[in-house]
Structures are given as structure tokens and as C-alpha cells.
């Protein structure tokens, strides 16, 4: 079975992220509903995970030693679906069925319905606990796989995240890497106004984690952080990725109203034009 070529080529990864953004916008437009902002803020991170960092085999999704990706912020399903399709877990044509009746591409990811989805998510706050169990279970069975868990910044308002953060550190799960998509917005407004989450890094440091702060749209920084996380032993690592909600499309960027709204036909045209003309 072929493993994906792991590429450190920045331009290649940038292209893949752009391609993913285009797929995300197209599928959301066809679906007519869904979460645009938080999918686009996480695109660079997820693209680097799927094309560079993770050891996985799209043609053998149940390969025992694969690295696992948990999209704890399940509403960003389009970013996961786009990367799964692009890397070959299923036909890209399936993306047009997002949120439609009988589609395996549910509004929030279902592991029972779609190959490559490791965990069913959508109810916030649960992914890190699941990641803990997976990481400890893999370690117990001496399976050399890593677990990646993508959290929203609004999501860390859930108390269970901090229960899980304690557990990861207590059990010294260094095969676990959490990533916070710190786009600063949630449904009702700015996180700082809805429920203050800052200072994010200090909280994780206090909970016993190795903390890495990066620009979540800088491919090189994402690569370096993920590599550094793998080298860190004896404690879990969290990457706090500063991101922009709706990143890549100026009309959506840092706009709270695009949290849970799909692009219209006109907006899609503007967005695609902008993405195609970008470097």
C-alpha cells in the first residue's frame, strides 16, 4: 500500500491549501448551508497535516499504524471532507452531496458513514478526551502512531476540554498534539466579548503542556511546529495557531456573520476569482 508522499515543499502545500479552499467554498455553496469561516481558518493547518505531517494511507484507511486526526470542532467538516477527497479517500464528486439526504457527508462528521473520518464530532468539547483515549490506547499496544486533535478557540470554553487537558498531561501523552484554531470569533461575536478565553497559552502551560505559538497561515511555521511537537517527549504539545476566520477570501475574513453561513452564488464567484488570482 502506498503512503502519501510527504512533501516539505512550501509552494506545493500552499497550492494544496488553495485547492482545499476552493473545494470548501464550492461544496458549501451547493449545500446552501454550513460553516464557512471556521473551515477556511483551519485550511492551512489541515492541509499540512494531510499532505506533509501525517502518516496515512487513503487506500487503506484502517491501517493500524496510521496517524489519527480528530476534528473536535466538527462544524468545520468541509475542511476535513475536502482534504479526505483530495488525498484519495473518496471521489471528489461526493463533495457535492454535502448535507444532502442520504449523503455520507453529514453536516458534522460521522465515522460510521465515511471512511477517513476517525471520530464522530459536532458536539463541542469532546474531541480532546477521545484523543487522549486513542493516544493512551495506541501507546499501550505499542503502536507508533500519533494523534492530532484540532480544537476551536471558542470550543475551549467547554469545561470538558480542561478535564481532558489535565488527563493528557497527567498521563504524559507525548504522542498527542492538540492544535487550537485561534481565529478569535464564535457564533455570537468575538470570543473576547462572548466569554474571554485569553490568555490561551498561559492556560495550557499551567495545565502542564508544551506550548508552541504560530501564525496558523504560515506553512513553514505550521511544519516546524508539528515537527517540534513530535520531538517533545514526556508531555503533550498544543499548537496555538493564530488564524483569521474566513482566511483567503477578503469578503469573509474576520467576519462573524460567516461563521455558519454558506457563500451565495455571487459570493462564490468573487471568492473563486480572488483565490485563483492569488499567489
Amino acid at each position, binding site marked *: 500500500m502506498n503512503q502519501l508522499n510527504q512533501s516539505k515543499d512550501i509552494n506545493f502545500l500552499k497550492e494544496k491549501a488553495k485547492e482545499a479552499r476552493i473545494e470548501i467554498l464550492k461544496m458549501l455553496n451547493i449545500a446552501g448551508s454550513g460553516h464557512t469561516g471556521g473551515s477556511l481558518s483551519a485550511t492551512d493547518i489541515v492541509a499540512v497535516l494531510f499532505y506533509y505531517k501525517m502518516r496515512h494511507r487513503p487506500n487503506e484507511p484502517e491501517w493500524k499504524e496510521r496517524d489519527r486526526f480528530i476534528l473536535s470542532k466538527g462544524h468545520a467538516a468541509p475542511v476535513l471532507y475536502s482534504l479526505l477527497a483530495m488525498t484519495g479517500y473518496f471521489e471528489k464528486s461526493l463533495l457535492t452531496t454535502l448535507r444532502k439526504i442520504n449523503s455520507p457527508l453529514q453536516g458534522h462528521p460521522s465515522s460510521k458513514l465515511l471512511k477517513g473520518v476517525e471520530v464522530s464530532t459536532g458536539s463541542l468539547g469532546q474531541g480532546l478526551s477521545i484523543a487522549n*483515549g*486513542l493516544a493512551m*490506547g495506541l501507546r499501550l499496544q505499542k503502536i507508533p502512531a500519533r494523534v492530532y486533535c484540532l480544537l476551536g478557540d471558542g470550543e475551549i470554553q467547554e469545561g470538558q476540554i480542561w478535564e481532558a487537558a489535565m488527563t493528557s498531561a497527567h498521563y504524559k501523552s507525548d504522542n498527542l498534539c492538540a492544535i487550537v484554531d485561534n481565529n478569535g470569533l464564535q457564533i455570537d461575536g468575538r470570543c473576547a466579548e462572548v466569554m474571554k478565553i485569553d490568555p490561551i497559552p498561559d492556560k495550557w502551560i499551567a495545565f502542564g503542556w508544551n506550548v508552541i505559538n504560530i501564525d496558523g497561515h504560515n506553512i513553514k511555521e505550521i511544519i516546524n511546529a508539528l515537527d517540534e511537537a513530535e520531538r517533545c517527549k514526556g508531555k503533550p504539545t498544543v499548537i496555538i495557531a493564530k488564524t483569521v476566520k474566513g482566511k483567503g477570501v477578503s469578503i469573509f475574513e474576520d467576519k462573524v456573520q460567516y461563521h455558519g453561513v454558506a457563500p451565495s452564488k455571487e459570493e462564490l464567484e468573487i471568492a473563486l476569482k480572488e483565490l485563483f488570482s492569488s499567489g
Partner: protein
Amino acid sequence: MANRPEESQLNKALLRSEEIASLAGKDMATRDAYGTALYNLGISNEKIVVLDADLSCSTKTIKFAKAFPERFFNIGISEQDMVCTAGGFALSGLIPFASTFAVFETGRAWEQIRQTIAYPFLNVKLAATHSGITVGEDGASHQANEDIALMRVIPNMTIIVPADGFETAQFVNILAEYNGPAYMRLGRAKAKAVMPNDYKASIGKAYKFHKGKDACIIATGLMVNESLKAREILLQSSIDCGVINVSTIKPLDGDTILEAVSGCKLVLTAEEHSIIGGLGGAVAEFLSENYPVKIIRTGIRDTFGMSGSPTELMKIYRLTAEDIAEKIRNNLH
């Protein structure tokens, strides 16, 4: 000389079945039987991992924890985290048993069970102790009278309520083999041995003690013993009352229930749980569609519990054999 691996596996399995058989006829709390069975399961099955939320001495997972510390994970006082962590263990290919008190496991972590365990059909065993009113002195905050209802409403969930230690030990092993989510409801108080020595437990199969001509008691958990005693009381007044033990609340064994109630003028359900949503609810829903007959539900009548000894509480909440017999007598004529 060391045994060949397959031989030692066989020996371990034999040890397990001998251990289970030794519990037949033994009065013991179902939580104690759980602790013993889990420990024995740990010897023969290396895929078993156990999680607890700081109550291992009370849930009796401590026995497993001491024998297999590398496969025991205390998650601290965080039931929601424990349930989802168990889900992660299942995803890694292991078989997690996650234990705490029933009120916290099914109540505090209900949505985690729904989303992370039941919806993706993960192989997690939720084995909760301290269910029902017989928790006793700790009072209402710790008496789960709603747990069966909470679990019943979740799709994909299997629900097991053993009547005694022997049945508990069998179900621990059966659930380890069953690949899917399950809730097992265990108690703190001593349970009288009720199941016969040759009893073989099976998911989805109710056990018929007696077929009655006049009435039928459908019971679960500790109430099986009370129901059997009620039958004896009623025989003195020439009332022939059948008794079945429904230890699998979901999926409900409709065939055995229909067979047991056929010809009876009255059905009484008996459970140490709210009359809403538990065994009584399940049986009433089933029989109203398949065999309309008068049903009296015995259980906690939509109220909270209180402190007291289990015996006192059983009397106050009218869960004794005498209460059951009286209800049947009053409703038969």
C-alpha cells in the same frame, strides 16, 4: 516448563468459567461480582482496559486496578472526560469498561454517551454501580432512579440489569465479547442469589421462572427476588402469578414477555427505578402495541429518594414483596 500460549489461554478461560460458576447461589452485591469478574476477565483478555472516576474502591474496579495497573486509568472526578476517553480507547482497538456511580455516569455524561459512544457505535462498556434507591444513606443526590430511562432513549444502546452476582459475572464476560456500546446497571446493596445454577445469560433473553395463570410479574435487578417472594405470598391465597427476569432492558425480549403474559388478566412490572422510562415504560409500550392488558408499574413513583437504610427505603417506596402481592391482589378483582 511454561505452557504453550494457546494452552495457557485455555487454562485462563477455564479459570474464568470456574470463577463464574462459583458465584452461583451466592448472595452478594452485584458491584462485588463485577469487580471479581472484571479481574478474572483481565487475566484472560489483554484487550480489557478499565477507567474510573475516583470511585474505584466503591465500584470495585480496584481489584482490576491493583492486578493490572498499566491497564487501569483513573481519570479523576471528571465523568464526561472519562466517557469520551473510553471512546478513544475503543477506537484504538481495546475494550474499555468505564465505571462510576450510575447517577454521574448516565446523568453527568449523558450527551457524551450519546455523541461519542452510541452514535458511532463504539465498543465501550459503561458499568455503573450505586443504582437505585438501595444506595441508602447517601441520599437522593446519589440514588440514580432515572438511569435506565436516560440510556433507553439513546439509539444503539444495550442495557443490562443483572439480578444477582452470578448473572452479573456472566454478563461481564458476555459484554466483553459483544462488539458495541452497552450500559450495565449494578447495585451497592447485597443481592440475594436468584438465578439457578444452570442459568446461562444471554443479551436480549429474559428468563422465565414461572408461568402464571392469573397474573405475571415482569421484574429486573433486585426486584426479581422481591417478585419471587411475592409469588409465594400470593400462592397462599391461591393466586397463580408468573415471574420473569428481564435483565436485558434493551433490546427487550418481546417473545418471552408475550409468552409469559398470555392468558393473564394482570401484568405488574417491578424495578428499583422510576416508573417512568424504565422497565415499566418499556413493557407498557411494548404490550400496549402487542397485547393490551392491564399493567401496574412498581417502582419509584416520580419522586426523589432520601437517606435511610436500603431495607427502610424499600418499605417507604413500597418495593417489597408484600407491596407487590398487595397490588396484585387489589387489582385482580
